[in-house]
């Protein structure tokens, strides 16, 4: 009986360990996509939502992609009539405050494209955070010319 109780305790402990790791910081990436750039463009914008399911702020250490020489996070703000784009020097994702990169706002920039991006392609990005975690993301390339049509006014 003693052995059995010990065995059960060990099993319970082993079962608890994975659930304990869920309390660690985890970045969740939603709806990652790339705006298909015109064929001559050397830059492209990537959009996604980064959510922090943990209880400590996550800081991004680096981001890279096989599709481009450089990847940067950019914020966009209206200063009067001027749309001001600036590199985000620090990217922090706070618990319960998703960081959104979306059309017309913040975006992740691929600079120095290594290949032409076509609709349906998949761009791989890798984000490393200050807690040592590595996130491999796949963002699908979307041709936005085919989106947002209210109706066809063909003549």
């Amino acid at each position, binding site marked *: 009986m003693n052995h059995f109780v010990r065995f059960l305790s060990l099993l319970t402990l082993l079962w608890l360990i994975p659930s304990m790791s869920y309390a660690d910081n985890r970045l969740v990436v939603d709806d990652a996509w790339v705006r298909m750039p015109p064929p001559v*463009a050397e830059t492209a914008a990537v959009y996604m939502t980064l959510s922090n399911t943990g209880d400590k702020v996550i800081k991004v250490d680096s981001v890279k992609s096989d599709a481009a020489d450089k990847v940067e996070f950019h914020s966009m703000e209206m200063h009067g009539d001027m749309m001001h784009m600036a590199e985000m020097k620090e990217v922090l994702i706070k618990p319960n405050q998703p960081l959104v990169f979306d059309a017309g706002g913040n975006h992740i920039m691929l*600079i*120095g494209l290594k290949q032409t991006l076509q609709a349906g392609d998949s761009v791989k990005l890798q984000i490393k955070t200050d807690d040592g975690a590595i996130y491999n993301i796949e963002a699908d390339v979307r041709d936005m010319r085919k989106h947002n049509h209210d109706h066809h006014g063909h003549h």
Partner: protein
Amino acid sequence: MKTKLSFLAFCLLLLLPLYGCTNQDTNVANISLLGSGFNTSINKQKDKLILLSFGYTHCPDVCPTTLMHVAQTLELLSAEEVEKVTPIFITLDPERDSLNSLAKYVNYFHPDLLGVSIDSKYSAYFLKHFQVESFKDSNDKDYLINHTSFLYLVDDKAKIVDMMGHQTKPASIADAIRKKLKEKR
């Protein structure tokens, strides 16, 4: 006789500033806009309404959005209305945007779009007329340009007849165009 001549000269001198004014407006309409295999200007778009935007091909978000809206606007107009509109995209980055790459860039959005570069001798003057401000964010080779992002409706004399933010929906841009076309009749 001398008094009369002096008086005449004096009158002409008074009129000189007026001549300067009209000359300046005409100058903007005259300024060469260079495209791949063509050369145009605002006053060559005789009796047309120009749908004008400014940007650069290294722009990841604002310019593609603006041009997408321009393209969708053209699709919303009737054949008769489209005939009266010339969509033009002017580069703010002549250092990197060759005429050839401009042509390919705008063609991606719509075949009617004209991608042009302002004759460098007059670009500051031209941009000032449209209150366009732009500046590089760094001296790296991958510099970005921060710029005003309005869409303009312009007549063939370079008069700005309407101005809209780049996020204006195509349906609203089309309505603005129709309104101006009606006013011209």
